[in-house]
């Protein structure tokens, strides 16, 4: 599947139920109810509040991104979902079962319905591709014959049927992650957790792996949770996103909504990282804080959503009866919405600049004055 198709798919998807569901909603695959996780003080290290008051739901069948800086609590969150750790308080419910209350054999049985892929693939070097995929099936006690059939299906599903007898050391990163995905899906889980699964891959391979995950979500209906620190991953694949910072979920909702109207500073930072909307150096060096005689005022206009941004230059030029100069622009598409910024040069002195600021704020277009250029 190429990039174009993947974008089309994103746009034609029916709107998913909001992520901020009430706790009792039946179409939540994963639910956090007042979850906090505290790692107790150990020797000279103080106790760490990794997660605090986490209360949100991940809709069944969705692709949900959980994005945050390192140390934000992402890893703790994912380890709570698959029961590798217990919350200090609160409940984690996966597919109707309270995984945070399970232990021993019951927990292990439930874990088989949750697949996971990893940043460093975590394949056994002593096993071939096929035998790596067979591992969770052996653990689940499948018969040899059933395993053989299932492994062939999975190798074909992830597109590496010809690598059956290869050892991980003979494969590329992308191929290893495909084995990881096949292994995670082996026991037909209904949840797939991706812990930074593309962070060790180059951009092209990342794209291919994300496309594969999108296909899997569409064809198998598996709920996918993407833990990542990369905005590009969320942007390409997720429909829902939760931004996590300092152990709190600071923002959550549809990807398009969150990134067209980011409220939290962390979200804003992720956004500018993704669309690269910082002011170009060539421009910064020319901008002076004092008005320049016969020069232009420099405004940065945020583009959020389709209608506002596309026509801003034309509309401003008409409004001011001056030709507005386009100094720099960067507009991207996130969740079908245009997101980015344009930097405009407004001729006509202070009066025109003031008029432009008034016009833009009247139309609720975010704008800031950067200075002046000749």
């Amino acid at each position: 599947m190429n990039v174009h198709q993947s974008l089309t798919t994103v746009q034609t998807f029916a709107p998913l139920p909001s992520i901020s569901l009430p706790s009792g909603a039946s179409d939540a695959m994963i639910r956090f109810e007042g979850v906090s996780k505290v790692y107790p003080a150990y020797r000279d290290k103080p106790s760490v509040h990794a997660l605090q008051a986490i209360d949100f739901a991940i809709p069944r069948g969705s692709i949900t991104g959980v994005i945050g800086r390192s140390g934000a609590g992402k890893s703790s969150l994912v380890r709570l979902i698959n029961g590798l750790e217990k919350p200090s308080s609160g409940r984690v419910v996966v597919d109707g079962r309270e995984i945070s209350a399970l232990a021993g054999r019951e927990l292990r049985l439930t874990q088989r319905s949750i697949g996971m892929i990893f940043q460093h693939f975590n394949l056994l070097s002593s096993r071939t591709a096929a035998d790596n995929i067979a591992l969770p099936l052996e653990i689940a006690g499948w018969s040899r014959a059933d395993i053989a059939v299932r492994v062939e299906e999975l190798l074909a599903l992830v597109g590496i049927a010809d690598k059956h007898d290869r050892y991980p050391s003979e494969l590329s990163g992308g191929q290893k992650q495909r084995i990881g995905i096949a292994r995670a899906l082996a026991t037909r889980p209904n949840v797939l957790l991706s812990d930074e699964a593309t962070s060790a891959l180059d951009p092209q391979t990342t794209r291919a792996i994300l496309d594969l995950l999108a296909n899997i979500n569409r064809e198998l209906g598996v709920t996918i949770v993407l833990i990542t620190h990369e905005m590009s991953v969320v942007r390409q694949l997720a429909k829902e996103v939760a931004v996590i910072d300092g152990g709190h979920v600071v923002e959550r909702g549809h990807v398009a909504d969150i990134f067209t109207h980011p409220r939290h500073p962390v979200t804003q930072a992720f956004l500018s990282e993704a669309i690269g909307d910082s002011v170009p150096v060539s421009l910064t060096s020319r901008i002076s804080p004092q008005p320049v005689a016969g020069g232009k005022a420099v405004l940065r206009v945020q583009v959020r959503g389709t209608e506002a941004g596309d026509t801003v230059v034309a509309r401003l030029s008409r409004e001011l009866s001056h030709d507005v100069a386009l100094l720099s622009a960067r507009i991207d598409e996130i969740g079908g919405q245009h997101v980015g910024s344009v930097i405009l040069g407004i001729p006509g002195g202070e009066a025109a600049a003031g008029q432009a600021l008034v016009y833009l704020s009247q139309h609720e277009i975010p704008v800031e004055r950067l200075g002046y250029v000749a």
Partner: protein
Amino acid sequence: MSRELINLIVQATGESLFMVTVAALVATVLGLPLGIFLATSRKGELFAAPPANGILGVIVNAARSTPFIILVVAIIPFTRLIAGTSIGSGAAIVPLTIAATPFIARLVEAAIREVDAGLIETASSFGASPLQIVFKVLIPEALPGLVLALTLAVVSLLGYSAMVGAVGGGGLGDLGIRYGYQRFMPEMMLAVVVVLIALVQTVQTAGDYLARRVNRRLRNR
């Protein structure tokens, strides 16, 4: 060298191989699980049992720091209990095993600890039980290291076996001391040393080969 002397060497080689082989087998059977337990029983690990880990660690260290020749003599009553006698090659297997077990346990522990912790977590996330993790992840992944560890243990046992002459254990080392040194027969000493070198070379080469064979981490095999 006379036929008699050659017969002596052949016989001693047989005794050495017998003692070392049996002691290595028994010590592996005991040391492998002990080493795996030592590698997985600290705080937060697979079979977390910090007190047991601590106590076993102390015992292992104590056994390893006792000079072998002292160990041989010190445990004579125990040897008699196990082997029915305290002299001869069969009896010598007891101290050899007791010396090799903690040694193998530490080597196994080191090899097992080399396995990426991420793999244990991965298997856990698939719902693997601790025993499944040991047999499906830890041992197969540590296999090259384990093979080298056992090779090292066998070579060390060949060295230890030279000292069991003190309790009439026989073997090559004993032959070298009694004939080569005490009867002043340098050709006998030389022959014993050459045989020992050949044995060590064979064991090490075989071990290296086997470790390479089971190592899938290397790209060019």
